[in-house]
């Protein structure tokens, strides 16, 4: 067993850390959040130039052939600075589905993603099905030789900026994954801000006509490809949460050392010290499950599903504890929008709600 990151992985971490230090302080981030696109196009261009957008893709598709370990390195560092660029939706989620499909234009779509000129978002959630994403009402129907798409999808990350959407739908009572262009007839998009300042949207499909090529996967293939995407997405947001927890406890330690009340730094008070120790412990425990899940995913371990659920539960619980303690120990400053600390709590809350919340994954774990 070897649980050390390679030199190459450490270099990647250094690179992201440096980028965030230079380009991603709290004020930079605030400006990005209020911009029209909700992310920085300049940053995205740099992500492309630095090769980050190529990280998970296979060499034959123009990628670096890196795996989950490198993704978690990226996301952990993103989490520390609360990076909002749509890496999860455009690279991880869409990339997994596109690369796992037999789409005739697969290589060119991936090339465009890697170059940073193209965004693709996966539309997997619906208004009334909760976390049972495969039970979707959105339907692909076949009429003579043409396919058409009807229904609606919600909570589509980065929806307003996407050039293409991958839609999870039902076709003849089994799952289907289809890809459509953003400007296709019969599609309407409505965008919302998310609780943590990012964007998501709702898609409505009215007789959107599909070519046979736009069907990426059907039946069992679609289901396993979708589940693979979910597992990897959960891993990535968990790594992001680990980074955010690390920043939260470190910022809290720093703040309590500087904040003086009763003529001394409040870090002198044991009750606060123990709270910060709890934050640290939860962060380390989350990191452990994150690394376990990463290695299992990397080696296609059949046990990975259960570990992913365990990880998502730990992320939900630890994120809440760390986020809430961080706010509490910052006092009034913690609930002020002008301080970064409350934004970590928002991100933990958003992460817990995505891809199955804590309770959902407790139940999923038990049924194994």
């Amino acid at each position, binding site marked *: 067993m070897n649980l050390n990151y390679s030199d190459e992985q450490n270099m990647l971490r250094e690179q992201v850390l440096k980028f965030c230090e230079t380009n991603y302080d709290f004020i930079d981030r605030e400006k990005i959040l209020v911009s029209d696109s909700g992310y920085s196009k300049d940053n995205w261009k740099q992500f492309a130039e630095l090769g980050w957008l190529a990280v998970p893709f296979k060499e034959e598709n123009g990628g670096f052939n890196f795996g989950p370990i490198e993704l978690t390195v990226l996301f952990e560092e993103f989490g520390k600075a609360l990076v909002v660029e749509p890496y999860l939706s455009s690279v991880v989620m869409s990339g997994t589905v596109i690369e796992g499909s037999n789409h005739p234009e697969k290589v060119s779509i991936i090339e465009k993603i890697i170059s940073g000129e193209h965004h693709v978002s996966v539309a997997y959630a619906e208004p009334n099905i909760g976390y049972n994403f495969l039970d979707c009402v959105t339907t692909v129907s076949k009429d003579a030789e043409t396919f058409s798409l009807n229904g609606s999808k919600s909570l589509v990350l980065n929806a307003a900026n996407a050039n293409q959407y991958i839609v999870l739908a039902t076709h003849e009572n089994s799952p289907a994954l289809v890809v459509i262009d953003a400007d296709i007839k019969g599609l309407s998009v409505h965008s919302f801000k998310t609780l943590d300042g990012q964007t998501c949207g709702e898609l409505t499909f009215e007789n959107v006509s599909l070519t046979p090529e736009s069907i990426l996967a059907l039946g069992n293939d679609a289901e396993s490809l979708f589940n693979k995407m979910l597992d990897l997405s959960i891993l990535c947001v968990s790594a992001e949460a680990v980074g955010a927890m690390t920043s939260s406890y470190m910022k809290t330690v720093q703040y309590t050392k500087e904040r003086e009340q009763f003529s001394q730094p409040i870090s002198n008070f044991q009750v606060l010290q123990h709270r910060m120790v709890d934050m640290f412990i939860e962060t380390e425990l989350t990191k452990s499950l994150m690394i376990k899940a990463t290695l299992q995913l990397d080696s296609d371990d059949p046990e990975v599903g259960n570990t992913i659920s365990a990880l998502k539960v730990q992320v939900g619980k630890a994120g809440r504890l760390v986020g809430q303690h961080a706010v*509490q120990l910052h006092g009034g400053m913690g609930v*002020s929008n002008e301080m970064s600390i409350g934004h970590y709590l928002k991100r933990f809350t958003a992460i817990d709600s995505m891809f199955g919340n804590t309770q959902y994954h407790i139940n999923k774990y038990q049924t194994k």
Partner: protein
Amino acid sequence: MDISFSEQDLQFQEEIRAGLNGSEFPANVREKREKGTALSKQDMIDFHKFIHAKGWMGYNWPVEYGGTGWSPVQIYLFLNELALAQCPTILPFGLSMVGPVIYTFGNQEQKDRFLPDILEFNTWWCQGYSEPGSGSDLASLKTKAVLDGDNYIVNGSKTWTTLAQNADWIFCLVRTETTQKKQEGISFLLIDMNTPGIEVKPIITIDGDHEVNSVFFTDVKVPADQLIGEEGKGWTYAKFLLAHERFGIAGVPVVKVQIEKLKDITAEFNDADLSKKITELEIDLEALEFTELRTLAAIAEGGHPGAESSILKIRGTEIQQRLTELFVEAAGQYILPYEGPEGFESNRTPAGPDYASPAVAQYLNYRKTSIYGGSNEIQKNIIAKAILGV
């Protein structure tokens, strides 16, 4: 011992209920509360004027100052009925905070000048306590008031001032003397918010709302007859005020109503996991409610529960915060699209349950409850010192 309410108490409860359901209740307030939309300043004024018109405004004041003189049980029942009728909270700043300080420590002229306007809600008060450098350690406050002829000249700043943007007056703790013991140089001053030299700047909280403010004082001239009691005794008055605040601090009636709402939601989805968590919260609430009743009973007997009321603050805010977590859990992933204080842009609401966005707003907003009014850590220090004697 007797757990039941008297016949008169129950009749009193009926009267309050009938009054709140009556036609005089401001329709604008009722409509917005039912929809869950935020109340404007005018809505709040209308509501308080209604409460005053019913003769209930001084619900926790003695008769001689225009109050109802109600017993603790009546106050308890009254607050319960307000919550059941989905009323907003009666603002505490004038009625429960500065009012009792004025009628207990103020002179006759001050009583005549300020108390009627508080009862009629002609003046909106805010509280000038916390400062950037003085939160939990409030007594270290630095805002300075220097006597110059008939006026105090005030310089400094206050922070986390709730609804200062609406306020006509602020009651402030100011430093009138630098003393060996920091508590001794503090005085209690009433300041007209329209006085030149006062600047109010909004602080936006993590839910996106504008509820609290920074208030800056630059050479603000305050007539010396707006000093309450004696110079240097402000800390004593502040402590008195904190003790007087205990009515309703636990927030039990509001939580009860919210729990029923959450139960309706979970029944719809038949969510057994969430139901169990709600049950646990109900049990916690039951213990807290009866603790509050014990406190009220002690007051009715003429007792002065002190540090025990810290239990109500600690557990009450814990339960309120837990409740917001359960609403967020019930909404699941649909909390993601977030409605700002101005509502969703272009008035289009996202898919998912309508309580989702308010749930997450409340969750974020209620982080304040374990911080304000003496953080829960400070409350535990009070219990440790005053009750456990350690």
